[in-house]
């Protein structure tokens, strides 16, 4: 069970949060111009890697804010949390 450092509230138990999957997948600005394949890429394709992963998290039972997190899935170490719209620390 992680301790997650919500960028708005501070450290809280993982049970207060929900995970929203891979981060930095921007909704296409002009979906109508995309081919079926391009749209499917946005819609369905998500990475599930062993190692450093960028994820969206929501402080669902707290401030209800969405934010991003860099987590190493092999040891659950959270390397960074940052607000939506902010640049990821390293890629």
């Amino acid at each position, binding site marked *: 069970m*992680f301790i997650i450092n919500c960028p708005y509230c501070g450290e809280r138990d993982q049970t207060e949060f929900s995970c929203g999957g891979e981060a930095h997948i921007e909704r296409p600005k002009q*979906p*109508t111009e995309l081919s*079926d394949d391009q749209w499917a890429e946005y*819609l369905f394709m998500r990475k599930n890697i062993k190692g450093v992963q960028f994820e969206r998290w929501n402080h*669902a039972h707290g401030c209800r804010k969405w934010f991003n997190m860099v987590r190493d899935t092999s040891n*659950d170490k959270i390397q960074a949390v940052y607000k*939506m719209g902010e640049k990821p620390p390293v890629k």
Partner: protein
Amino acid sequence: MSKNLRINKNNFIDQTTRISFRFNGQKLFGYKGDTLASALLANNIHLVGRSFKYHRPRGIMTCGSEEPNAIVQIGNDPSLTDPNVRATEIELYEGLEASSQNCWPSVNFDIGGINNFLSPLLPAGFYYKTFMWPASFWEKYEYFIRHSAGLGKAPTKSDPDIYDHQYSHCDILVVGGGISGIISAKLSAEKGLDTILIDDKSFLGGSTIYQENECYKINSVNSNKWLANEIESLKNYPNLLIKNRTSLAAFHGYNYLLARENLTDHLSINERKGKVRQRLWKIRAKKVIIASGSIERPLIFSNNDRPGIILSSSIKKYIDYYGVKTGENISLFTNNDSAYETAISLKKSGVKVNVIVDIRKNSNSLIVQEALELGLKVLWESTVVDTQGYKRIKSFEVMKLSDDGNSVIGNKAKHNCDCLGISGGWTPMVHLFTQSGGKLKFRNDDNVFIPDENKTPSDQISVGSCNGEFKLNEIIVNTIENLKSFLSLSNTCYDGIKIICPDEKSKRNIWLLPSDKPVGKTKPFLDFQNDSTAKDVKLALREGFKSIEHVKRYTTTGMGTDQGKLSNMHALGIIADTTGTNMGELGTTTFRPPYTPLTFGAIVGRNVGEFFDHTRKTAIHNWHVKNKAEFENVGQWKRPWYFPKNGENMQQAVQRESKAARDSAGILDASTLGKIDIQGTDASEFLNRVYTNAWSKLEIGKCRYGLMLNEDGMVYDDGVTTRLSENHYIMTTTTGGAANVLSKLEDYLQTEWPELDVYLTTVTDQYSTISICGPNSKKILAKIVPGLDLSDSNFPHMSFKDTKIRNVNCRIMRISFTGEHSYEINIQSNYAEDLWIKCMEAGKEFNLTPYGTETMHLLRAEKGFIITGQDTDGTLTPSDLQMDWIIGKKKFDFIGKRSLYRSDTIREDRKQLVGLLTDDPKEVLEEGAQLVENINTKPVEMLGHVTSSYFSPNLNKSIALAVVKSGKKLKGKKLIVPMENKNINVTITDTVFYDKENKRLNA
């Protein structure tokens, strides 16, 4: 058989407090401080159970949580009895009743013991191989397997005991109260850190506290005296919490640990009343110090499982700590020096030690010298090849080992004994370390897996023998040194500490000791609880199993309640030897929590009885109860389902309610619908993006039905949204979807469209909604809001009015989910019940009939209105629902738009919503029933299924909605609904059954 094997010498047992207990019905005595095991041994009872597969007699083998054999059932009370309790851990209390498990009719005469003689027929994988064939026999086999393989008996009544949970946060958690744990706790507390020390025993000090031996000195006093002083000094630290009888169950990520504290299991039944039995500690520690110690390994030789064969260190504890002789003619069998400590303790306590069999060529450490000086006889470079004695060891046979250790040579010598101590070296307890994510490395020197300091999760450290340090000086010096950096200490109260201890130099390890008989004719047990032998492991390898995880499951080695604590290493060693692999490359099996079994009571704590889940009731709930509503659970909500009158059943009540609503007037509590208040200068744009239809042009004061999709184009939720003012809307959602819709909208606002000026507030609970429908609804509303102009021109369908009812603000929407002329009054919840009663009074002359969810569903089905979640299941697009009219095709974008013309979503043979009429108008279909065209083709093609089905009193016939492949094109087609006993003929129709012209909306 009954004998007193207690000596009077020790400081640990209160020999003035005698305790009576029963074992298998026999009344016995022990002392306060005993475990059940020590008390049984004091009464000369070794035989305590039968093994799992062969039902071989088994005795107490250890003195701790690794015990594989002495597993007993405590008590007879159907609500309190406790199965699978280790006799080595349970403390004796007045009135304790224990009985053996896995034996029938008794431990001395056990029918399953016949398996022992059949054992050549019961090799590894026996169950898998034999009972798989023929498949139809499985039920018969299972009956016998269950009967003969049963472990303890579960209680049959609910547990009356109290269990507790407690959260705790600390700077440092020290796990284990042996010498390294004590030093760690003191250093941490000395630095002023908030420290918790837990230990599973009733006393602190581990094995050092009873190490009364001149060979071990710390600062010139015997190590046990030094440690006793250290433990005493811990009392001086108010920032140190010590928890005895507390065992760590699990070590999760981020230093979140679960520990179970036993509070009453050592008390007599009378003393337990009203007290918490066990407490589960949920600990968040900034740093964790693991000092979980090590356990002694057995040696693997033929018939090494007889009662009376005990780990050498356990014999030492029984004599030194409990003052109990485990026999009167004891021999020892070892591959290391620690058995000599046992021999010395026994000798000094006046117990006859016959011989020490040592597989090494020699050893000249201090401790061996002392043993030799005491006159103990050692058989060097020898091994035990076999043992005799059915219910208790009587003798053992010794032969010389060859140089390479692969075989035995010379003559066989037989030695009599009543107890054989065995010592195969030590295994660090790395379970917690690996549970936390740490990785192990293998040390070839002494064949141990130890924590890899480069693969240790942060903020934890392993110290002492669980870290592979076995010599007293190493344990102390390394613990202090490691903690200096771990706790950032510059100097410590232990600086300059002087330690004297023996130095073991000579080592020899043979995983499977040779015998004069071929392996096939021997029984060298590896897993004592599951009866797997070295032979089984070798067989598994011959049959092609290579991975240790597979061998473990195939042979069941390490799968008992002891989780292979004793012999996992031997299994690995034998695999490595047989396959010519290095043990380090082989790796270990995974150690999973809990470290020792937990009771369900401890896991659930006080969370028993009713669920904590919210029960949501509307503000009008009390009226519904008073008026005999039957309720339906909708998510957390309790909604009136129907209101039976005069003994009506559901069918009768629903038919009456439905008819009344269309003939005159019906009233529904619609308060549970989700309500989201939407404000901001971009509110209209926001709605454009989340709904499929267009919103910008919706006039203030008007309502509009909206359909919300997922990004994949599938229908997600629906509801009516009203424009209250230029930048202010109120959205309604389905009852079940309310929370998810809000989350989804927040997600888009925060992550995709942060530029939009929109604010969302859930107001579901703040407003209650009363819906009045039917041809007389207008007349009723006129009585309640006399000043309001209800004419169609002033207050048309799909519009709303802000008004007051008796000075209370309310919003009235003229919207309809039934197809009738209908109003929804939204009022602050605390006025809702009062308003409902006023409506009932006003409606009395019009037979205003309260109706519940079932009638609501029926009425909307007559009109072909969908219920998301009932007629949809996340695989239907608006077009599939024949709702193409709601797609704003001119809109640039909305959630899910692009998906509506993916190659898959434009397929014409998708399942589509249709209406169904049964040929027999009285026949009501079952929801979920399948639809087929041709019953005779095989396989029968499933075309779809029924989603909603009712008998309509207003049409006097059965109606249904269904999804059917290519349904849109199949209007008029006959299909079949095959049921268990009959086939029902149906015809595909339009989805609207009633008032197709929508005349009644304005009636």
